[in-house]
């Protein structure tokens, strides 16, 4: 589908998320945010500032206490749980801080999982696509292995491959390089960069590596669940 560059892909309107409890915890407070197609966005901030929480809200994993999250202009708060699940399956790719692969499935089966859940491709097409994705991420030799037989960086790249399975326009990554050494981090970063530059995806990545954030198009900084700055990096590589 072609997306008008002017239509926001994801939009947050006055989003607040409060965890109920004896002492209610405010995770995200009054956030207004627009993510447009082909952006490579960094979310930064100190630990506990609500970066992950915001990402879950943008990725429809969590529902705001008040405010709205819109995907391609559609209000998501009125959707049913299954409608949100379908939106996640088709529109959004997640990469978590920890790889979160299914331990019993092979690398290749982990990547085909979202495709099988969607069921739009034939079995051959799914396998072909999974192999293509994994090869492009340098994992051609590891398809039949299980996640625990891979290194951290390899697992994270499998997670990226999985997030791309159903060709979603948006990839949301929560500290995708957080648990990796600098070499592996650089590899994963380059993969994400390429997704935006070559494939025209939109990537929103949480990171507390400021140097890395500098190299992205736009940096949103959080503190105590609020956006304290949101600015573009003109120096960063221009989209292809």
């Amino acid at each position: 589908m072609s997306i008008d560059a002017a239509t926001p892909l994801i939009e947050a309107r006055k989003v607040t998320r409060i965890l109920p409890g004896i002492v209610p915890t405010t995770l995200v407070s009054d956030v207004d945010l627009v993510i447009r197609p082909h952006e490579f966005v960094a979310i930064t901030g100190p630990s506990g500032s609500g970066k992950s929480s915001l990402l879950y809200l943008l990725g429809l994993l969590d529902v705001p206490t008040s405010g709205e999250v819109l995907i391609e202009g559609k209000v998501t708060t009125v959707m049913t749980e299954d409608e949100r699940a379908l939106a996640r399956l088709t529109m959004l790719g997640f990469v978590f801080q920890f790889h979160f692969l299914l331990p019993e499935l092979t690398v290749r089966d982990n990547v085909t999982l979202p495709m099988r859940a969607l069921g739009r491709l034939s079995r051959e097409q799914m396998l072909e696509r999974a192999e293509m994705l994994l090869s492009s991420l340098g994992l051609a030799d590891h398809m039949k292995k299980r996640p625990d037989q891979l290194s951290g960086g390899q697992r994270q790249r499998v997670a990226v491959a999985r997030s791309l399975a159903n060709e979603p326009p948006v990839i949301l990554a929560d500290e995708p390089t957080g648990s990796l050494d600098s070499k592996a981090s650089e590899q994963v970063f380059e993969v994400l960069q390429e997704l935006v530059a070559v494939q025209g995806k939109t990537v929103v990545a949480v990171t507390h590596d400021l140097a890395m954030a500098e190299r992205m198009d736009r940096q949103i900084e959080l503190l105590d669940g609020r956006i304290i700055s949101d600015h573009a990096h003109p120096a960063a590589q221009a989209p292809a």
Partner: protein
Amino acid sequence: MNLIFDIAWTHVLARLRQTGVAIAGVATGVGFSIMMASLMQGSQDDFIKQLVNAMPHITVSDERRAPPPQPAERFYDAAEIHNLTPEARRRGIKNPLATMAALEPWLPGGIAPTVRVQAIIRYASHDVATAVVAIDPRREASVSDLPKQMRGATLAALYRATNAIILGDRLSEKIGARIGANITLQTSEGARMNAQVVGFFHTGVRSVDESTAYVLVKTGQILAQQTGLINELRIRLGDPMISREIADRVERETGYKSVSWQEAHEDLMSSFVIRNLIMFTVVGAILLVASFGTYNIISTITHEKARDIAIMKSLGLSEFTVRSIFVVEASIIGVAGAAVGFVLGYLLCVGLGSIEIKSPFLDTDRLPLAYSYVHYLLAGIVALLSSVVAGYQPARKAARLHPVEIIRGAT
């Protein structure tokens, strides 16, 4: 669908030992249920078979179900007479030969005339109330197994002496009469007759063996003091299960009360219903207990796999898909348990069937067992259903889980 099954299968394989225990639980339940059903049905069938073989399938007697209308009732609408005292002297079936000839063309079985007289047998110092049944030995084979149940002589021995009599083996033991013994028969009407024991029979039904004796029709008529009397027609059918319908038709055509063996043993039939009810309750309880094991393992797996469930849900797998995974796991346990249970049940039956038992009440030296696919089918269906029901609750809970709660906790 395939995806659901694949993931369910990996979970089952990852917990092989525990699923094995759950499967063993279901299998034990199914196996013992089959054995129970087989034993209960077998003993019931065996009992009915003995019962059915020991007596005519249908007895046509010289009674009417309703008393004949009285002249007063015929003439005055308002007249109604209750509690008529029946005639002391029963007349017997009119034209028994013509009646039999009318029934024989359509009757799917044999028919034989009988005189039934109640008498006291006297021998040595014993007095035993006995049903004296007067028969035609040439026709007897078509209505009962008596010719096959003879001990020490054949039915033809009845022709060998005047007033020859054949006793049930338990009856003869009771009074101590051997072949050749001269016993005395006495009826309540005051008739008295000497008879010579010419043989014994053994049906295996205790009540019959200890209180029945057979004589010739002619002898019976003398004992009843009514020449030409036939007061009972006995019918045996090829298929005893249609006795009720045939009895109804015989009664309609002859006007005489025709009682099928089922009607004669209505109380017994209803006690079978109760017996079966008890059996189903016990079997149901066994299978229910087995399903607890399934519940247990499915809850354990859903707890252990909470993170995987969160991953799947965060990727966008629907609640239905996640729920189905665990319901399928429960079904795998149910199906595997039923399959193993079938084998177990069959082996238990074979094992039980090979045990020799000596019982004074049973003729057979093996436990009667009925093999029926219905037992397997029922036990299998109940096991599968209860497994699915047991797995559904934890599956539903797992499917409703909010992925973000787990993911928050894990990072």
